[in-house]
């Protein structure tokens, strides 16, 4: 559908942050379109700006200049409250370090995302099927410390998509996993994209991981290199 507007539209995005007294230009005019239902991998070496792009797209940090539109909402000029609302309603985030709440069970970790978004913490049968596909339906009553890294990351994925976000952002989702668990997680992301049409933008430095995506873009020195 060529007329459908991109779900993520980035134009001339710049981000400068301070490292001590030195200003560092992490993004130097990034422009990017992501189609609805696309699974995009952003690859690049350390310092290329891919993590900064992830932080801006997820609303964890504001842009310095340029425009970013996610599912029709311009986020570059949003204040803290606006960016918080964006994470609640539009964006699901998966981190390299899983970032599960250690005192809660897997089920509670997922439920709290629903609670924060103001929804009933009980999910329906459709999401139960997703949990089954993720292979964690029998691990829901365990706390993170009783789970393997792969299981924790799958719970983190479940938490990220429980509110049906417009986009799923994943930052090095396999960075802490062994090869076998990496394959499981990447296959699940691809399956999720193919079966539900979930838009996914994955940051990775690993070309093998990027190969699971529909499209790959490369970043270098704060710019899209191709």
């Amino acid at each position: 559908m060529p007329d459908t507007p991109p779900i993520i539209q980035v134009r001339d995005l710049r981000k400068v942050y301070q490292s001590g007294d030195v200003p560092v230009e992490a993004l130097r005019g990034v422009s990017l379109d992501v189609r609805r239902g696309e699974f995009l991998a952003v690859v690049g070496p350390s310092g290329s700006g891919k993590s900064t792009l992830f932080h801006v797209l997820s609303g964890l940090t504001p842009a310095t200049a340029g425009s970013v539109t996610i599912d029709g909402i311009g986020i570059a000029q949003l204040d803290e409250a606006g960016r918080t609302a964006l994470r609640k309603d539009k964006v699901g985030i998966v981190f390299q370090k899983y970032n599960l709440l250690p005192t809660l069970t897997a089920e509670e970790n997922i439920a709290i995302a629903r609670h924060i978004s103001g929804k009933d913490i009980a999910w329906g049968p459709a999401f139960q099927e997703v949990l089954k596909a993720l292979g964690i339906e029998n691990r829901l009553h365990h706390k993170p410390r009783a789970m393997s890294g792969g299981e924790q990351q799958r719970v983190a994925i479940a938490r990220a998509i429980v509110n049906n976000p417009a986009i799923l952002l994943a930052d090095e989702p396999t960075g802490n996993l062994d090869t076998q668990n990496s394959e499981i997680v990447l296959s699940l992301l691809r399956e999720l994209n193919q079966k539900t049409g979930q838009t996914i933008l994955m940051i990775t430095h690993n070309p093998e991981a990027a190969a699971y995506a529909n499209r790959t873009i490369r970043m270098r020195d704060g710019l899209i290199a191709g």
Partner: protein
Amino acid sequence: MRTLLSAAAIAIEVAMILTLVGLSDGTLDESKRMRRGIGADIVVRPGSTSVMSFSGVTLPEKLVEYFQQQPDVEIATGSAAHGIPGGLMESASGVDLAKFSTMSDGLRFLSGGPFQAPKDIIVDERYARTKQLGVGSTLKLWDKNWNVCGVVEPGKLSRVFLPLPVVQELASAPGKLSQIYIKLKDPSRTDAVVKALKDNPQLGSYQVLSIDELASLFSIDGFPALRQFISVVIGLGVVVGFLVVLLSMYTAVLERTREIGILKSLGASPAYIMGILMRETLILSITGAVAGIVLSLVTQWTMNTFGGSALVQKMVPHWWPYTTLLAIAGALLGTLYPAMKAVRHDALEALSYD
């Protein structure tokens, strides 16, 4: 562990307040009960003595005869008090046992009986319990050995009784009394008789009080300094509770910086995070307050079992809501600053906190 310590600090704060209020109320109530237990309608005291003072053996004994001759008076008798060394507000009362018994319907002996010899002493059950005395025991007071001849029910004038002349001799005040008690033939005439006695210029230097007036002085309102003291201790308790919770929550927020970052990454608003911290504090302070109430019951049992005979701690359930509210308010206030600091955390910085 940190949560447990915070709850314990709140419990101690609550228990401290309840114990102090219970002690002041209990001790004053017991004093009131003991005055009422005398059975008199009117009390005559030296002019300048405080209501809590039992010493000051300065009233002429011959006044008893004067009062006895008044037409409205059924019986008049006096007592002399002598402070017990090392006892907190404790004194022994010298009484004319026959007249005192007539006035107060008699001391009720739980064991033993009246004085038989000059070295005999009567104690009440609480004093006997706290000092582990029984009939036949020897009690050493004022460097003298006394023989416990009787143990009586508490609630009448004093916990320790001696023959009147013995106390007068101990106080080096022969022929003098600390207080005179008057029982009227018609108690309904108490106010009229009190007024008449007060109007008598010969009695101008003495305090003449109805027993109701005397009893009313044994209340917190009668002791402004005690009220101030209690207020100061309550204030200190609240400040200590506030500081402990502040420190505890500050540490908690630091420890949980990453968790707060995770919540923010999920889209939790400042109000949501503040709500979580405040709810935790509410549960913590209610738990602490309940533990404090239980602890105050333990201190009550300890005071009444092992403490001195002068201090009586009573249960003060009407103070439970106040102390609970104070504990909650102090704890919520102590959480406010760390909670505000938590919600201002930058999400990215919080997520990178280890």
